[in-house]
């Protein structure tokens, strides 16, 4: 690793020097919109040579997943080093080299529940952007009740035969592999008969159908399993204990959707968007809402930092992460309402001067639904954190 980790100042200087040498200027536009994200995967088409170069040089140095162990393709950074890395990226407005469900979701699950062999097998391709993953949790009609999994895996000795249907599978039509909750014991209680399986989306019997959203985009799919063969070693954790893995991951998902890590408009500065819209903020209600939103945004961002510090200090965050998911997604909706208001009639056009703003605005409405609704988050807080009855 080309970074001196003996002290923070030295480390920061090394990072800065490395970035100066390796981060292409085109990747320093800081505008992490939905369109500019590098997702990777077998079929990925780089938007530019710079994007490809930036991914590769980061991957070579473990910097796509800087906190993962070096043996699995990470850089082995601790929390303080990660902060320095991110703050230096922020200083030059650099894009993240790679974003993916593999990084956000499957990786943490494997690091916690996977065997050493599984980690060696699955993690490095994620860090290099070679395999793009999708998540198969939700099923038709289940809504917030994720544990009501109907997709079933029939035990055939060395493999399961999986049949069923998933819905709200993000980018299933673009993903290479899926991690999915499958019922492998239909007689057990709801939470006890589910396994966490991994399989290739090119397996025979897997098909997808994009769902068109109100924004016009189709980031989600319906995903169908028709006699899909899944070898027994493609399970994370113990058979029929997949709910433990799912619960663990939901916590990660909450933190992510709260705005801490996703590209969903998190990088969009309030002031910048308002200025771009040519708004002078002299009108009281808009001005007052802009400041209020800014206050909330800074406060929630600090809370995400504080919780990360707490987690890094070995104190688990647990159910309290529901708060980050709740506060972050509600804020994101509020902020995009403000953006739309500042954008005026220009923001009412799909292809107006405010670019993807209207589609982004509509997209935020799903933030408080996906990964557990705001209502589910509030119930988790009230029951598990506050200990309220019933």
């Amino acid at each position, binding site marked *: 690793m080309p970074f001196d980790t003996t002290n923070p100042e030295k480390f920061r200087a090394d990072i800065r020097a490395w970035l100066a040498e390796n981060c292409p200027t085109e990747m320093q536009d800081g505008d992490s919109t939905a369109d500019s994200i590098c997702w990777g995967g077998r079929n990925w088409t780089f938007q530019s040579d710079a994007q490809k170069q930036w991914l590769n040089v980061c991957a070579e140095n473990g910097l796509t997943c800087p906190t993962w162990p070096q043996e699995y393709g990470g850089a082995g950074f601790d929390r303080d080093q990660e902060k320095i890395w991110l703050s230096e990226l922020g200083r030059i407005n650099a894009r993240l080299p790679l974003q993916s469900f593999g990084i956000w979701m499957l990786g943490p699950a494997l690091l916690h529940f996977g065997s050493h062999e599984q980690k060696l097998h699955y993690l490095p391709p994620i860090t290099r952007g070679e395999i793009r993953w999708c998540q198969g949790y*939700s099923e038709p009609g289940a*809504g*917030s*009740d994720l544990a009501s999994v109907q997709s079933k895996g029939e035990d055939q000795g060395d493999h399961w035969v999986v049949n069923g249907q998933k*819905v*709200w599978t993000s980018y299933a039509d673009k993903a290479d592999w899926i991690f999915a909750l499958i019922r492998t014991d239909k007689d057990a209680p709801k939470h006890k008969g589910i396994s966490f399986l991994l399989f290739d989306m090119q397996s025979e019997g897997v098909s997808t159908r994009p*769902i*068109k*959203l*109100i924004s*016009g985009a189709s980031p989600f799919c319906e995903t169908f399993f028709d006699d899909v063969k899944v070898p027994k070693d493609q399970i994370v954790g113990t058979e029929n204990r997949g709910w433990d893995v799912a619960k663990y991951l939901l916590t990660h998902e909450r933190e992510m959707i709260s705005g801490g890590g996703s590209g969903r408009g998190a990088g969009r500065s309030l002031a910048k968007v308002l200025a771009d*819209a*040519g708004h002078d903020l002299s*009108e*009281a*209600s*808009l001005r007052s809402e802009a400041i209020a939103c800014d206050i909330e945004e800074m406060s929630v961002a600090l809370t995400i930092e504080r919780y990360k510090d707490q987690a890094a200090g070995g104190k688990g965050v647990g159910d309290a992460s529901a708060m980050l998911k709740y506060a972050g997604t509600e804020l994101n*909706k509020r902020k995009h*309402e403000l953006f*739309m*208001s500042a*954008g*005026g*009639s*220009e*923001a*009412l*056009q*799909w*292809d*107006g001067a405010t670019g993807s703003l*209207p589609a982004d605005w*509509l997209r935020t*409405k*799903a933030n*408080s*639904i*996906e990964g557990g*609704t*705001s*209502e589910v988050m*509030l119930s988790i807080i009230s029951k598990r954190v506050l200990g309220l009855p019933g």
Partner: protein
Amino acid sequence: MTNLTLNEDETMLVDSARGFLDEASPVEKFRELRDAGKAYNPELWKQMADLGWTGVLVPEDQGGIDMGHAAANLLAQEMGKTLVSSPFISTAVMAATALRQVADNPRAAEALGKIASGDLTYALALDEGVKHAPNNTQMQAERVGNGFSLSGEKTFVVDGGSADRLLVLARTGDDDGALTLFDIPADRDGITRTAQNMIDARDSAQISFEGVEATGEDVVGTVDQAMSVLSPALRAGQAALAAEMTGLSSGAFGMTVSYLQERKQFGVLIGQFQALQHRAAHLWSDIEVATSTIANAGRMMDEDPENATLAVSLAKAKACQTAKLAVMEGVQMHGGIGMTDAFDMGFFMKRARVAQEWLGDYGYHAEQIAKIKGY
């Protein structure tokens, strides 16, 4: 005395409008228009003319039914419930109100007649920036000989792509208020209309004017005095739009309550969850309150039009807030399905957003109110 409930005529109007629209223009008809890329259905417009709706604000002398603004609002409200897409507000409310201010002018009288018969549609070309600000009009109407030459750009001209004629606001002098309203055919030389790809899939256009000629005949009312004809039209349009938004809120709310009554989660109807019950009750209250401001705006415009600005801005400001809440709760309470294009709730959300901006958003009308009340 002013009474804020419906009188008998109005109750009949609402009942027949609802019956007609449920049959002729449920939300799926809007979906068909959207999918076909069409702004509105001319056949429906003709039927609305036959019912007298296009002439709701046209004097009887010109073939209208002249039922007044409260009635126009009620029609807009019913249309909002099922997201009817038509040039009703632009043509039958705003253009009709502007033109009837000068109804003794034969050309205006003729136009009013054609509005009533459904043979003529209008759009109002007012705004030039991203926010509603008619007083900030920069577009020039230069005097050339006995006439004028209009040059400039208008944006967010609702119904501007399909309208037969345009009411265009342009500057005829340097004084702040020196604006003039022109009534010109939309295909006159020098006019270029560019469709705007609106999120609500309705007709809106950017319109550029390059040396468009206008005569003194084309002036609605008096030169430099646009506001004397335009202000009543704006008020009428703002109130009708507020009514449409309140109808839209009711429509979205109705879908949501039905869903709460039928959707199960965790083994129970989600309508049993008290947190959702209370939010639904709050939203219902808010829609009731908004409805009162619509009724008041209608009465004021009919009974004391000179002093109706406060009532109209109140109605539009309140409607903006209520509609925003109604569609946000509508999507959230429906969960994932509310986010899909195959479901109708997104249409309500997108229509509400555009309606919030058109003719002045919450902040604009809040400041109007503050000005009137001397803050």
